[in-house]
């Protein structure tokens, strides 16, 4: 239980740090609604990462407030209206910057981890 709770805490911290990058990345190609985003994250992470309502939507609203994404209610024919999010130009800039940061961070971690293991 202790191990599980420690792992869950690490998982929470990692998720927090990477969540913005994930959302922005997924919106890079096309607009998506919240549920779509949560399923994509789960699918592409092969179940490692799961975003529930309680964590996903506050994140979306925060990103929207910062102007990195923009939400709009859209009603497609034959469907109920849904709130779709798209990446803004400011968000694209942030995505680029965060990707670069994460890449450098990941490289640094691998080098350190690699040296220890070696």
């Amino acid at each position, binding site marked *: 239980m202790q191990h599980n709770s420690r792992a869950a805490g690490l998982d929470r911290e990692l998720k927090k740090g990477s969540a913005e990058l994930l959302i922005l990345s997924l919106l890079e190609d096309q607009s998506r609604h919240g*549920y779509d985003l949560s399923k994509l994250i789960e699918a592409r992470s092969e179940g490692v990462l799961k975003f*529930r*309502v*309680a964590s996903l*939507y*506050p994140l979306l*609203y925060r990103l929207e*407030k910062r102007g990195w994404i923009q939400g709009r209610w859209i009603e497609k024919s034959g469907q109920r209206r849904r*709130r779709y999010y798209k990446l803004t130009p400011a968000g694209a800039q942030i995505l680029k910057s965060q990707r670069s940061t994460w890449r450098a961070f990941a490289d640094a971690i691998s080098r350190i981890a690699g040296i220890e293991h070696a």
Partner: protein
Amino acid sequence: MPDRSTADSKAGWREEIRVRLAGLHLPPAREADVIEELSQHLDDRYRELCAGGASHEAAVRESLAELDDTDLVRELAGVERERAREPLAIGSGSAAASPRALFGLWHDVRFGARLLIKDKGVTFVVVVTLAIAIAANTIVFGLSDLLWFTPVPVANAKRLAAIFAADERSTTSRDPLSIPQYRDVVRQSAAFDSVAAMFGRQLSLTGAGEPQPVIAVLATANIFTTLGLDPVLGRTFLPAEDTPGRPNVAVLSHRFWTSRFQADPGVVGRTLILNGTPHAVVGVLTPTIEVGSLGQVDLWIPADTSSSTTRQRDRDLAVYGVLRDGQTVASANADLAAITERLRRDYPVTDGRLLIHALSMRDANVSPDTPILLTMAGVVVGLVLLLACANVGTVMQARASTRQREIALRLALGATRARLVRQLISEGAFLGVISGAVGVALAAAAVPGVKLLTSDSYIQTLELSTDTLIFAAVLSILTPVLFGVIPALQSSRPNLNEDLKDAARVGPSRRLHNRRSALVITQVAFALTVLIISGLVVRSVFAREQVPLGIASADVLCVRVRFDPPKYGDDDSRIRTVDAVLARLSALPGVDSVAATSRVPVFDPEPQRQFTIAGRQQSGSEIPWAVEATMTSRFREVMKLPVLDGRSFTNEDRAASARVAVISREAVRRYWPSQSPLGQRITLLDGAGNPTGDAIAIVGVVDDVKGVSLTEPAPPRIYFPLAQRVGESVVFTVRTARDTTLMAALFRGALRAEDADLALSEIRPLDTMLDTRLFRPFLLVVALFAAFAAIGLVLALTGVYGVAAFSTGQRRHEIAIRLALGATSAEVTRLVVARSFRPIGVGLLLGALGGWSVANIMRGLLFGTTTLDPSIYITVIALLAFGGVAASFVPARRAAASDPAFVLKQG
């Protein structure tokens, strides 16, 4: 819990989500959005689980588990709290305002424009009020710009100074210099690179069409280089072309070249006969110098200033100097003071009280009164602008008070004060810009009218220059600050409880009442100040018109005739012709009396002559002087100049008879205060102060005639028989009650019948000439100040009416209750009017104080009135008081006539 049968019913999920979010107290619209979005997510999750084989209960449980996170409310609270702090744009339906400031500003302007278009009546009143005030300010600025700031149209304007003579008793006067004085300045001054002089003369032009008099300027050869003037054709004077023996040349003015010679490029080389002497035309001058009196000049001729060796009192020369590098007008004046000191010492008789001083071209081009007049005009239009802003502020506040509740609510919901102020200022700026555009258009339309009111050729060049337009633009942007920012700051002050209560209250609060009273006080005070200043200025001008001149100028025609050599080479030939002309004129039908004189009284320059009185020792400042003129025997009949003692001239006072003179009452008062002057003998002094000519007996005393300066006492005058002192220029005067045009034609015919080559000036009525010289210049002043006063009065009364109407509207319930309780309409009307009059009364008191303070500053301008002229003060105070009562009477009567039951039912 969502029901299996209505698993996709949003109601179930929504209720669950609503319960969890209740503690966030989100705005309703935002809450609805969040709930819908989250419920859709849960619904999708539920469907996915069901599709994967989960039971209904398990799917519901699993879906709801998505909400089970204590982070949800905390995270949402953090985000929504930050979102709520985002200022709400007034009237904006969406809380998602653009973060970019420019977009927000544009949004505010658009919103303000929509509101103003919606409220067309108010917008129209505001725009018209401000536009009139801005137009008035623009006109005054345009005049100031022209008269003060626009460079004089000569190349050396910045280094050029005009040099004047003055008497030590009147240090600000600007008299011409004499030739010897000019030469002294040239020789002795170290402050100037070059000094040039010129004087005007009327000459006879023959040999080019009908003989006509021309206005010539005789000038030193360096005049054009000194003034920095270039020719547009040919050349100007060569150096030393003004010395004796050089060929006679002439430079035409551009105006004369265009009007008389049809801008013929072949005019250079033509010969003009001026006073019988041929002059070769060598060039045409640039038209830029043709402003002011120089706009009347026909041609320029070199003047010989070297031949005069004796000091003369005749001062004729307008003198200009180009300051040396490093010199200023002040340092030049110090230099001239030293020269003056030497001249006073060396020539005590002629120059004993002399002052020579320099003025910049800017100062020289305007009369001494102009700066004060323009300053007063600036004060008046500034007050008119403030009045307009106060007026508009009343209107805007009335509008704002209907939005008080809205503003207070928005502040309570988190709108920032800065955003609110920005919104209100944007509305004001929008109004200001539109008003400015309309104001400039009004000013442009008024410019031709201004030009019509004056014959000053300088003001004929008035236009809305770039500087003037910039001024108007700045004014129209600043005026929103005056009427937009202050009420905006007050409206945005977070006394939210009061505002919310105020809006719900029936009747005005004390706070609003005080604010409106302050506006009324301000408007009335400003308007009264404007009325007092304008009244005093207009009164001064009219007082000038009432000054008795001493002559009867109506029904008198005048014409100036030149008797120039060689045809009229001596006094005899001139006198013979004068007598013959007088005989012809007397024979014309409809003529009452005819006479000739050397100068048109009051109109022409008035040379002074010193003399000694037999049996008295006088020297220095005690030497008597008088303005001299000549006249024929019936001059006093033509001018209706009463003889007070002795006799006037007769036909027996000829060249060969004893020398006689007639003096004025002022001369008697000064020089023979305790004895009769009749029979006393005087001897004239020449320019060097030496007695000249035979002794002259005083034979009569006539009444005083005013000088050009109507505000000064009449000068002492001495008249001589024309036959004993005839000059080259004679003015014929005819008194006739017949039609002026007809008589002018007969007049001209009689003169031409005597000599077809006589050079005649235009025949004009004397009262027209005097009006143009003495009163016409002030017509513009009267018109401007009267217009400002009228605008100020209308604005103030409109403002009072507006406040009274609004206040009465606010008090309609109170009035209805009074009426219901038995008050009569008259009692209610009296009550309302009395309440409205309190701030009016305070405003009148403050305005009277303000008007008196400003009047003290312009004391020097006043004539025939005082700073506390009771007739002005009583009139304008009564005007405003009655106007204010009338303005508040109308809404009072309307309120008193209302149906109390109807008003009370309305709530």
